[in-house]
C-alpha cells in the first residue's frame, strides 16, 4: 500500500538539495572556480596554501603556481615536497612532476622511476606518457585538468 508519509525522509533529502539546484541552474557564474582573489591559483588552492602550509595540497598548489610563473626549479621543489608527504591519490601531482623533470632535462633514470610510481598508482590512466608531453610541468591545456582536480572527495 502506497503511503506518502513513508517517503518523508527521501523528500527531505531532495528538498535540501533544492537550493543547490536553483543556485546551480540560475546563479552559478560561468567562471565559477576560477581565481578571484588576485592570485593565479584557484581560490581553493589559495586557501590550502594559507591554512595548511607544508601539506601535500599546498605544496602541489605552490608547484603549479611556480610553473605558471616559469620557475621550474621551484616547481620541482614543491612537487617533491608534496610527494614526500606520502600522498598517492593525486594523479596530477605525479604527472606534473614528471613533466617538470622532463622540461628541466633531468636524469632519465629519475624520470623513469617517477613514471613507474605514477603507473603503479594509476595503472589505468588514459593520459599520454608525460615523457612525450609538450606541457610545461602542469601548465594547463585547454580543456585539460585543473590543479584543483587533485583534490578528491573522501
Amino acid at each position: 500500500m502506497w503511503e506518502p508519509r513513508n517517503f518523508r525522509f527521501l523528500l527531505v533529502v531532495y528538498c535540501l538539495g533544492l537550493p543547490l539546484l536553483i543556485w546551480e541552474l540560475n546563479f552559478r557564474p560561468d567562471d565559477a572556480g576560477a581565481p578571484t582573489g588576485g592570485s593565479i591559483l584557484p581560490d581553493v588552492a589559495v586557501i590550502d596554501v594559507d591554512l595548511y602550509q607544508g601539506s601535500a595540497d599546498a605544496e602541489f598548489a605552490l608547484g603549479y603556481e611556480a610553473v605558471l610563473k616559469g620557475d621550474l626549479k621551484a616547481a620541482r621543489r614543491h612537487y617533491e615536497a608534496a610527494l614526500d608527504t606520502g600522498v598517492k591519490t593525486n594523479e596530477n601531482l605525479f604527472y606534473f612532476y614528471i613533466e617538470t623533470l622532463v622540461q628541466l632535462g633531468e636524469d632519465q633514470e629519475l624520470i623513469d622511476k617517477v613514471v613507474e610510481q605514477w603507473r603503479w598508482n594509476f595503472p589505468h590512466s588514459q593520459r599520454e606518457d608525460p615523457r612525450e608531453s609538450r606541457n610545461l610541468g602542469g601548465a594547463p591545456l585547454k580543456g585539460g585538468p585543473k590543479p584543483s582536480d587533485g583534490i578528491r572527495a573522501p
Partner: protein
Amino acid sequence: MIRTGYIVDRRNDLIWFLGLPLFALAFALYSQFALSAVAIASIALWIEYPHHFVTFLRTYGLSDDWDRFKDRLIIGPIVIVGVTLGGLMYAPLTITLVMLLWRQQHFLMQLHGFTRIYDFKARTGDASIGKWDLALNWVLYLNMFLASPLFTRLWARNLTDFGIPINADTVRIVHQCSWAVTAAFAVGYVGHLLRGIKDGYAINPIKYLYLGLSYSMLYIVSWHTASVLVHAVANMIIHGIQYNVIVYWYLRRKFEKEENTTSWIARLVRPGNVVAFVALGVLYAVIYQLLRGGNLDEFGFGLFRFEYASIPALSLGPMSEQTAFELFASTLLFLPGLLHIYFDSFIWRVRETKVQGGL
C-alpha cells in the same frame, strides 16, 4: 550507575566494535606506506559492495522487512535512480553534492545507531539520551566535516565550484565557530550525563569507549594524515565491516527467536555458516565488479596486475586491457566447469559400495 551491555557479546564487540577502529587506522596507514592508490578501489570492492549486498539481503530477503517496507523498497529505487540520472544530466554539481552529503549523514547515523544499541542492550540512559546522542554524533561528525583539513578542502572546493566566493578568513571563521559549538555542546552533554547519574540512571561505558575509539580514528585520519587514501580506507573498513557484523547477528538472532530453520537466509546465518554468509557477499562483489567492467587490479589492492606482456617468439603483442579482462572473466566463468571435472574424478567410483547403492 554503571551497567555494561554489548551489541553482540563481549568477545565480538572487542573485535568488531572496539578493536576494529584501531585495526582500520593501522591498515590505512599501512596502505599509505605500502599500497598504491588502487587500494581505495580494492577496499570498496571487498568491503563496500558486500555491505550493500547485506542490506539487499535483509530488505528483499526477509519477508518481515519486505512486508513492512514494501512501498519504499519498490518506489525508492525508482525515485533514486531517476533523480540521480536526471541530476547527472541537468545539474551534476548538485546531485554530486547531495550524494556526498547524504553519504556522510549515513556514516554518522550508523555511528549513532550503534550507540543506541549499546544503551538498548544495557538498558542505560534516561528517556532523552537518544536525542542527546544523536546531537552528539551530529556535532562531532559535523565538526570533523567543517574543521578538518581533509574535509575543508572538499567543501571549500564544492563552494568554489558553485561560484560561491570564499577565502582563508571565511574558512578560519567556520573552523572557529565549529570548534566553539563542539566545545559548548560537549559541556552540555557531560552536564546532562552527570544529571542523569545523579537521578539514578546508569551509563554504559562500552558505548562511550566505542564512540571514543571511532571518533578518535576518524579525527586522526582527517586531521593528521590529510590523505584521501588513508581516510577512505579507514572509514570504509569500520563502516562496512561493522555493518556486515550487525546484519549477520540481527538476522541470526531473529531467525533463532522465530525458530525458523527452513528459509535459505536462516540457513545462511546459522551458527557455523558464517563463511557462507561472507562468501555470498564476496561473490556479489565479484559479480558486481565484473558487470560494471571495473579494473581487474582492484581485486588485489593494486599488488597484482592483469597485464600480459608480448611474446615475441610467437609474434604476439601485449594484450589490451579489454582482452585481459575478457580472458579473466571467461576463466572465472569456466571455474564451475573445473569444479565439475574435479568432483567427478572421485564421486563416481563404481567399485565403492556407497556408489553402487545408488546405481
